[in-house]
């Protein structure tokens, strides 16, 4: 059975159409990401699942149970908020025990479980501190512990890593993924960072303008984007100009190529390759790879990524570019 089933859901805020007839199923135990730019409807979808917003029309089911008209406290999902939303007047352990307390778990058991959960996120030493005494990354873990201590079927995460610095974010991405695998909980993760979505997710739904543009595994979305929005939003994409398409004998249409699929060759040696000519405008060294910007003779700019170790053209040089 699917963990979450969203059927024909529309959400309007006044005249603004936030979600436009959304249909989506999230499988039990998967790490599911909702990816999109701000205002694309991904956070609204999360809030609809949590129950913070009510649908304008359509139904939401959690594990087969229709929860469309249920309040957040009646739904077996928990949320990690973007700003963590820790209660400032309570200690860390009281924050984690709060959900158990309102569920009527007795004192000894709830503190036992709260401490265990804090131990899991390596923060039991801070149990008696106030949230404001913790760093951003630590607060984030407390928020996670507070949501997980209730052992929900589904954990909703609203851009929880966006306030952390890059190093910590990458570390947390791996930890979250491991946690999800160990606990067998369905994670629904909202992010605007395509790389983050790629790293963690089993499946990704790409949102834009209140609609799901594409849903699939990271590889499917990266290699077979359903439309030009997905192609340009997920990773870098070069859109091949019409003149090059027809010059190489292809039927007219829209073609794209990923930066890492482009190689630099001598045009005359490889007559079977699609070629384009251009001038290198910039060559950026990124440690593991070069990112090369090329202005084609047809005026479009292409991005090419080549691994370090390969000979790359220098800035200003005239080069012919091959595209496989």
């Amino acid at each position, binding site marked *: 059975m699917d963990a979450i089933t969203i059927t024909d859901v529309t959400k309007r805020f006044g005249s603004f159409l936030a979600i436009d007839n959304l249909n989506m199923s999230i499988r039990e135990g998967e790490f599911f990401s909702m990816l999109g730019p701000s205002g694309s409807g991904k956070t609204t979808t999360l809030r609809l699942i949590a129950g913070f917003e009510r649908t304008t029309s359509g139904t939401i089911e959690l594990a087969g149970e229709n929860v469309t008209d249920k309040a957040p*406290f009646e739904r077996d999902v928990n949320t990690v908020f973007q700003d963590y*939303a820790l209660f400032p007047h309570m200690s860390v352990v009281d924050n984690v025990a709060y959900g158990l307390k309102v569920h009527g778990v007795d004192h000894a058991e709830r503190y036992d479980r709260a401490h265990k959960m804090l131990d899991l996120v390596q923060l039991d030493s801070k149990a008696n501190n106030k949230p404001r005494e913790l760093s951003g990354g630590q607060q984030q873990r407390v928020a996670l512990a507070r949501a997980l201590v209730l052992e929900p079927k589904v954990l909703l995460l609203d851009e929880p890593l966006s306030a952390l610095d890059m190093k910590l974010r990458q570390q947390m991405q791996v930890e979250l993924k491991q946690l999800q695998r160990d606990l067998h909980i369905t994670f629904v993760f909202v992010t605007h960072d395509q790389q983050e979505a790629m790293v963690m997710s089993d499946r990704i739904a790409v949102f834009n303008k209140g609609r799901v543009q594409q849903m699939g595994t990271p590889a499917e979305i990266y290699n077979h984007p359903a439309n030009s929005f997905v192609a340009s939003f997920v990773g870098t994409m070069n859109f091949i100009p019409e003149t090059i398409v027809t010059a190489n004998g292809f039927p007219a249409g829209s073609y794209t190529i990923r930066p890492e699929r482009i190689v630099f060759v001598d045009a005359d040696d490889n007559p079977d390759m699609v070629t384009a000519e251009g001038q290198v405008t910039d060559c950026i060294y990124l440690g593991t790879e070069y990112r090369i910007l090329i202005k084609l003779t047809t005026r479009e700019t292409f991005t090419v990524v080549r691994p370090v170790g390969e000979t790359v053209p220098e800035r200003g040089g005239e080069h012919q570019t091959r595209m496989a």
Partner: protein
Amino acid sequence: MKQRAKKPVSSFLYNHPTLHRWALLVLPVGWMALVYIVALIALLITALWSVNEYTGAVEMTWTFDNLIQAFTDSLYLTVTERTLFIAVLATVIDIILAFPIAFYMARMASPRARKLLVILVSTPLWAGYLVKAYAWRSVLSGSGVLDMILRPFGGHSPGYGLFAVILVEVYLWLPYVITPIYTAFEQVPESLLEASSDLGARSGVTIRKVLLPMIVPGVVAGSIFSFSLSLGDYIVAGIVGGKTQVLGNIIYTDVGVANNSPMAAACALIPIIIIGVYLMLVSRTGALKRL
């Protein structure tokens, strides 16, 4: 090269940051020291002087008689009790009234209605204190508006007295209580209430466990205003209090009529001590830290 005008004072201050800070603070700190601390010490010293029974002149002979009288004499004790009663009751009523208003303004009203309400709440502050007190005198008078309204129902104006004093104190300080409570309500992030609900708490529990604890500092701030302002007020008692006397009236009489400023000073220490004790109790709850 860019030409720069020479600013010797600015660059001197820039290079001496401590001096900079002192230059900024010397006026307000000096003012506070003079007006509050020196005045307070002067008050304490005055309370230890005595008045010549025949000439009425203040003599610098040291005595604890004034203080002993102020803190043990049944007249002073009764008036202190009454003043405290008025201040506490006015504060409690103000908080009870301010709560729903502040909650509605901060969390329920539309942005437009909120702006309007903020203006409406602060409007009374534009009118002079005396004007408002006299307005209530007229409202409460035997042939006043209140009497006219109540008469068809068999009622009549409560007239001047203790009740009127409390009523007017409540009215006067209400905006000072609404404003900090409103700000406190407004500053509670929506996500905290959502988080509470998300963790399984019904609305009542969320209000009790999350919303109310977070607005305690606002309530404390409001109560400090209404409590200290009511405690020190004597003009309202003079205007609508009838025969009701509060500490301020006694102090006023001691200075103005009896010409006994040492006694007045001793008396004036009573509300200062009460406020001091109140602030100490409040700071023990930790609410001041979160103001």
